[in-house]
């Protein structure tokens, strides 16, 4: 009977859990790591980026995002949208072609892979015959032309991937059609480029690597014209009127050819080496676009003089008299130009450039060609991210002040709206304003609007101005001198080089109610900043906190303290520093917290912790936690400096090795593969010989860095007697110690004069000695104490001061609840002893029920070193749910994780990308967007077969079916099925087209 009832309760609890918790990885913020291909659909107004890891990402209007991942872990080398359709084709490094589509499902589009294909040559042919080097998606939407390394062009019907062998353009036929004198018997080399005549879809220009270009008529199956260029070909562009062809070459030249006449051989109109005289690098891509009145836009990438500027990554834009060489921060992957007008045939409006580390969009219609700020794909890593901090539910007042401070920083950006507008963003407006703050290696703190799908930059704070650094802040800016040739202009913000690593930001704490911010850095500096709408010139007062307190035998071998500027510094509107604490020794700050109501900042390093009164600008308390026998902490990070040198050397070796192997890979030789396998086996054997060992030993007080302060916490609670609550400060160390101090604050009137005092009240030494990662006090109702000022702003219920408070100490190994004021263990939850994982990150979150509006629970969000996420209930410390989230090998991903107050979180999946996840069933931020089929085209209508098509639904591309497709290796889908897909789209598209028409009128 009893058992029966309990069972019922458990199932009830299970239902509540389902209503509260739900795990999703929702969206990736930031810039894709190692992009390798760029595609753009003018009709859909969608941008596609492929990466070296096989991911493909589509972006349209802000908030419209899709992501797909190829099963193969191969780089995406090319992306082509099928003109006027919602399908796109990707070419991977492993020579496979993949068909993707945007399929509407429940009113939201999804990116799905619907087919894959690998060219099969004639039996016995070398692999180079079918290695695809150039792809043309024909404007009919039915044909794909594939140029290969062997010089052949294969014609494939899409979306079914059916080879049309009879239409293939073999190298032999082409060779016969050209004059004998052109190079004689030498090979034409691979197909470098395939271009369709914009004026006549039946004509296709085939550019061969050696320089020959042939215009092929698809109807007559014959060569119409040929262009005999002598330099190795890099790219080809067919002007819009179809009368001229531009070719760019590896010697840094581009040529214009007239193809208007009936002559089979076209003559050269112009040949130019734009940055000539001395040898130049190749022009990898050339584009010419007409304007209604006046001269055309000519854009090309590369072509720089090899010796003097060979290392620049440039795109040159020439329009009339204006000639600018845009100098990018990293290697150019690809670029395209967006044009005005409904058919994308109007004036060029924006140049979109994908470089290795960022996406840059340049407004071509505004004087000076300013950059348009990107609403997504922002380079989070323009300086390496060193820490992050999330603040939920920002009050509107603070939000607006930060925005206006940020607006003043962004005056150099173009005022034009974002030019890529595809798709409809259907996600609801975010329920609240959330801020994500990232600290960077160069001493900046960036504020991001993290409320919705787009991580939008709001404001950037630099702390470097407070200190004297080695570099002059003005030395590398605006060095553009008059009359320089080529006329460089720096664009982009990616700048991974930090002047002084000591400036790096390690901890951030923002009080959203008062606008006080504290940031702490690598050299033990703690800055307290205040939001000011006016610029101000002030000197920052520095206080030194000696954390050693006369500890003997200490030798700090690490970096020195940062040198503070004595003279007043002009700070722009925004967060302005007014107080500075410098720890001595200047070790990296490991814990930081701010209490804006009490006007106190607590900070900790590996040597101890301190409490600073930022109203009176003095230290209230300094406590050394150092264990005198801890040599490592005593000497500072010297050994690590050594190892950096070593690891640098190693990584260079690794790079060299991988380059070698990459080259080998390109040679595409089976013998090399064998070689690599043998090497791998040898490595494995070596591992067998010297296995990794782990010592099993209980922790002792003599372990290294036991004194490192891991967490600091302010609480107004019953520290020493159960009838009077007092302000208190709690600190937890790596060695499993908790120190509690009772604080005495003067009354509000006397706050500026009387001293704040701190008295040691309690010390707890956890028996298991695991590092303390978080401390929390729960009120009489068992809910966590509210943040400072939260109650004053009527945003939280005031804590229950009648019932007894509880202290929750979270160590890496267990969660333990103690009673207060008499500290006795009440309950606990063991983690490491049970499953061997350790707590890495922990946050307090409130989970709202997805079913009833007014039900919710507090809980702890926990990330372990195994990369698993847990939710632990409060105050009962019971495990609720558990989801694997991050690979356990991804140490930096785990270390970067930050939780929100509503059950979401972020972690870095690459140096430049945050993955957003949600554990809450109610609070989910994910892209919901719809892309409709462009209205037009008789061809697409003719492809649609309404009969029975709407009944047929594609299977989700699940792994099993994919494998099946993979085994077939040739065409994944029959033509019939593919056509029914078209019909499906047709049906959903009609209604949308109507709506659009109404909007238009």
């Amino acid at each position, binding site marked *: 009977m009893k058992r029966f009832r309990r069972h019922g309760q458990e199932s009830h609890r299970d239902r509540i859990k389902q209503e509260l918790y739900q795990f999703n990885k929702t969206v990736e913020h930031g810039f894709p790591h190692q992009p390798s291909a760029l595609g753009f659909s003018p009709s859909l107004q969608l941008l596609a980026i492929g990466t070296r890891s096989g991911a493909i990402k589509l972006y349209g209007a802000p908030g419209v995002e899709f992501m797909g991942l190829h099963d193969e872990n191969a780089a995406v080398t090319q992306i082509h949208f099928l003109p006027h359709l919602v399908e796109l084709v990707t070419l991977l490094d492993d020579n496979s072609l993949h068909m993707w589509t945007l399929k509407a499902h429940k009113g939201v589009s999804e990116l799905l892979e619907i087919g894959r294909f690998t060219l099969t040559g004639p039996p016995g042919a070398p692999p180079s015959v079918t290695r695809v080097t150039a792809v043309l998606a024909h404007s009919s939407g039915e044909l794909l032309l594939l140029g290969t390394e062997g010089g052949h062009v294969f014609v494939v019907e899409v979306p079914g991937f059916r080879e049309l062998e009879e239409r293939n353009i073999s190298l032999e036929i082409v060779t016969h059609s050209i004059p004998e004198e052109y190079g004689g018997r030498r090979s034409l080399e691979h197909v470098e480029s395939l271009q369709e005549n914009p004026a006549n879809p039946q004509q296709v220009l085939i550019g061969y690597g050696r320089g020959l270009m042939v215009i092929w008529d698809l109807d007559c199956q014959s060569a119409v014209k040929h262009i005999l260029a002598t330099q190795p070909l890099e790219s080809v562009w067919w002007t819009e009127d179809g009368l001229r062809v531009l070719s760019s070459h590896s010697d840094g030249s581009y040529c214009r050819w007239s193809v208007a006449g009936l002559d089979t051989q076209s003559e050269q109109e112009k040949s130019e080496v734009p940055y000539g005289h001395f040898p130049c690098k190749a022009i990898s891509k050339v584009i010419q676009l007409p304007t209604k009145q006046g001269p055309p836009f000519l854009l090309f990438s590369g072509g720089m003089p090899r010796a003097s500027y060979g290392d620049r990554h440039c795109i040159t834009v020439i329009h009339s008299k204006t000639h600018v060489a845009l100098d990018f921060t990293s290697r150019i992957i690809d670029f395209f130009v967006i044009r005005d007008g409904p058919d994308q045939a109007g004036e060029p409006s924006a140049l979109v450039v994908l470089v290795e580390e960022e996406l840059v969009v340049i407004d071509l219609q505004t004087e000076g060609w300013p950059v348009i700020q990107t609403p997504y794909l922002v380079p989070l890593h323009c300086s390496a991210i060193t820490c992050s901090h999330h603040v939920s539910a920002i009050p509107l007042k603070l939000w607006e002040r930060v925005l206006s401070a940020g607006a003043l920083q962004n005056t150099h950006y173009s005022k034009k709206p974002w030019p890529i507008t595809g798709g409809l963003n259907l996600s609801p407006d975010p329920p609240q304003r959330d801020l994500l703050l990232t600290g960077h290696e160069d001493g900046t703190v960036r504020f991001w609007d993290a409320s919705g799908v787009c991580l939008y930059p709001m404001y950037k704070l630099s702390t470097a101005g407070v200190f004297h650094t080695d570099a002059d802040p003005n030395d590398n800016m605006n060095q553009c001198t008059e009359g320089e040739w080529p006329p460089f202009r720096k664009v982009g913000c990616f700048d991974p080089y930090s002047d002084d690593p000591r400036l790096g930001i390690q901890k951030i704490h923002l009080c959203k109610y008062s606008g006080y911010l504290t940031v702490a850095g690598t050299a033990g500096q703690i800055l307290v900043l205040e939001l000011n709408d006016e610029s101000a010139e002030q000197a920052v007062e520095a206080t030194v906190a000696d954390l050693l307190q006369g500890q003997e035998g200490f030798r700090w071998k690490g970096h020195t303290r940062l040198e503070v500027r004595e003279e007043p510094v002009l700070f722009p509107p925004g967060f302005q520093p007014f107080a500075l604490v410098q720890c001595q020794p200047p070790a990296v700050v490991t814990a930081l917290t701010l209490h804006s109501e009490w006007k106190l900042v607590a900070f900790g390093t590996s040597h101890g912790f301190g409490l600073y009164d930022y109203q009176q600008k003095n230290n209230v308390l300094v406590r050394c936690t150092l264990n005198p026998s801890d040599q490592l902490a005593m000497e500072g990070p010297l050994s690590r400096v050594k190892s950096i040198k070593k690891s640098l050397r190693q990584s260079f070796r690794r790079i060299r090795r991988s380059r070698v192997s990459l080259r080998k890979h390109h040679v595409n030789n089976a013998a090399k593969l064998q070689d690599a396998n043998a090497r791998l086996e040898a490595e494995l054997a070596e591992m067998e010989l010297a*296995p*990794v060992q*782990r010592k*099993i*030993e209980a922790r002792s007080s003599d372990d290294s860095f036991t004194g490192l302060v891991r967490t600091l916490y302010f609480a107004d609670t019953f520290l020493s007697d159960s009838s009077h609550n007092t302000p208190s400060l709690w600190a937890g160390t790596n060695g499993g110690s908790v120190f509690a101090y009772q604080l005495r604050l003067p009354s509000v009137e006397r706050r500026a004069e009387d001293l704040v005092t701190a008295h040691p009240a309690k010390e*707890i030494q956890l028996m298991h000695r695991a590092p303390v990662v978080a401390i929390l006090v729960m009120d009489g109702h068992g809910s966590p104490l509210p943040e400072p000022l939260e109650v004053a702003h009527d945003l939280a219920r005031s804590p229950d001061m009648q019932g007894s408070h509880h202290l929750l100490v979270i160590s890496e*190994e267990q969660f333990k609840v103690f009673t207060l004021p008499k500290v*006795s263990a009440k309950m606990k939850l063991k983690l490491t*002893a049970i499953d*061997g994982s350790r707590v890495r990150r922990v946050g307090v979150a409130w989970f709202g029920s997805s079913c009833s509006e007014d039900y919710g629970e507090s809980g702890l969000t926990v990330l372990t070193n195994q990369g698993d996420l847990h939710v632990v209930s409060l105050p009962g410390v019971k495990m609720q749910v558990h989801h694997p989230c991050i690979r356990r090998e991804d140490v930096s991903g785990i270390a970067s994780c930050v939780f929100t107050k509503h059950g979401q979180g972020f972690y870095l999946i690459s140096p430049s990308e945050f993955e957003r996840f949600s554990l809450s069933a109610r609070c989910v931020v994910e892209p919901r967007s719809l892309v409709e089929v462009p209205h037009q085209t008789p061809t697409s209508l003719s492809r649609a077969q309404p009969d029975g098509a709407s009944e047929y639904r594609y299977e989700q591309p699940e792994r099993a079916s994919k494998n099946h497709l993979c085994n077939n290796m040739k065409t994944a889908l029959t033509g019939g099925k593919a056509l029914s897909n078209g019909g499906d789209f047709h049906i959903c598209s009609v209604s949308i087209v109507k709506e659009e028409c109404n909007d238009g009128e």
Partner: protein
Amino acid sequence: MNKNHRVPSNRTLSAVEVKSKFGAEFRRFSLDRSKPGRFDEFYGLLQHVHRIPNVDLLVGYADVHGDLLPINNDDNYHKAISVASPLLRLFLQRKEEADYSAFGTDSLTRPKKTVLAAVLLRPDANRKKPPVIISLPRDFRPVSSIIDVDILPETHRRVRLYKHGQEKPLGFYIRDGSSVRVTPQGLEKVPGIFISRMVPGGLAESTGLLAVNDEVLEVNGIEVQGKSLDQVTDMMIANSHNLIVTVKPANQRNNIVRSGGGGAASGSSGRSSDSGASFYGYSSSGTAVATTPAHIIQNYHPEEVESDEDDEDLVIEAGGEAVPIPRAASASCSMPALPRYEPHLNLRTAANGALAASNSASSLSALSPTGRGLEGRSQEEDGTVITL
């Protein structure tokens, strides 16, 4: 009733000569071996002959091997009588003195040196340090044990290592490896965790229960299959205060023979009473004590081990002295009756509840300056004694 005992019967072999010592006084008398009577009668007799009718006594005797064993019920009383040949030597103590500090320091010091030293103490240790606290058998502390023999396959061994805050390292390393399993598809190689190295002088080595290349199957009841080396390491460290590892010994020759009562070297004590808290060793029944007198008695109460030792987090109140954190829910008497050290704070957390409460102040302060070295030393002693 007592008359019966007082009758001199030296001429018969059935008489047991008794030499009873209380304080500095001796009393000699004899008992009938065939009719020893009940323990309470015997107890009354002792009070009578020593003329201490109202003193609560703790009765101990030296057995043939020189071990000091208690007499506190009929069973062990009868045992004591039956094994006495010919002299039964009794040591009486006042109950109130017979707690932690007093026991073994005063009246029993000398007898222990002479009678018990051969087994309990090594001479050199005896010289260097203050008298070791020898108390009732249940106060002995095991350092390791084989448990759950009855429920485990014979090829496996579940070993419990008692760390008890001593300074001696656990002292072993683990590594990744592969083991061969029998599956329906035949033999299959699966990844496993193995002991790779023993630290000389470490706890693991000194017990002799673990060896290099033993495969680790479980840690405190949790299977390690599918867990990484780091996870298993962390699990072991998290459980280091009371580590139970189930291993498949690389050397399968010394396995416990389950059927025999005392066949193998470890077999004599390899039986476990129940699965919940089955420690090898003996229950307090006198028969068990007597049948294998060469071993030290371990009357280890299950709840003492089960009670979580890491609940003894140390709390220092402002200006006050360190107190261990009692479990709020449970009574303090369930705490392990063991002295503990807190080297970091150099404070001793006497968590032995009621027993230590009366005199902890003096005895603890006297002991703590002796430092960790001594404590570690004494652990070592115990370790060698209790090792199989």
